[in-house]
């Protein structure tokens, strides 16, 4: 996951690699996801979240659809 100056820069980067762009969104959403995803990491009894729990977090921050479907 990389930060680009603009969507035009994402397009240029993908074209140079002969790739289709993946998903693009703003930092506000990235911040929401980062806060939520890691909010249990400093607990002694931390465990890796289940796929369903991870999917629920993605949905909480509005990341829905086939691109965001975890295995």
């Amino acid at each position, binding site marked *: 996951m990389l930060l680009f100056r603009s969507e035009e820069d994402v397009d240029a980067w993908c074209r140079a690699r002969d790739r289709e762009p993946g*998903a693009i969104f703003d930092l506000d959403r990235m*911040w929401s996801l980062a806060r939520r*995803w890691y909010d249990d990491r400093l607990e*002694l009894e931390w465990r890796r979240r289940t796929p369903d729990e991870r999917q629920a977090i993605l949905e909480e921050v509005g990341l829905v659809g086939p691109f965001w479907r975890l*295995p």
Partner: protein
Amino acid sequence: MDEQTFDRRVRLWIYRHVIDTGRVPGPLEIAEAFVRPLPDVEAALQRLETEADAIVRLPGTSSIWMAEPFSAVPTAFRVRAGQRQWWGNCIWDGLAILALLALDGVLETACPASGEPLAVTVENGALAHAPGVVHFAVPARDWWHSIGFT
């Protein structure tokens, strides 16, 4: 101390160490901190990677490469708060470091296409300066298959 308790304490100690020092500890430092033989720590690190999915070791070694969101090695995502600094594995992890520590600070990276430096600032628990757009190159189903490229 049973194995699970030991592993949990080692995991949390790793985080506390990197938060305080900006550096991911090596197995020997962990062994010294817990006053345990090195093989005990190496076994715990192996379990933390392969069973708990809590860390990533450098391939072929017992050294920690990632304790997400922290990277043990310098990356394109430097996080600074006060006099301390850390390395995130990606834009997600870089922001997560500031979120996890509840600190005001700055995440420094550069646009991979233009090379332009980009600095994201967090103040009072919120984004204060948020330039640019985030790009996820691969879909969620492949995140853990290509962790270095995602």
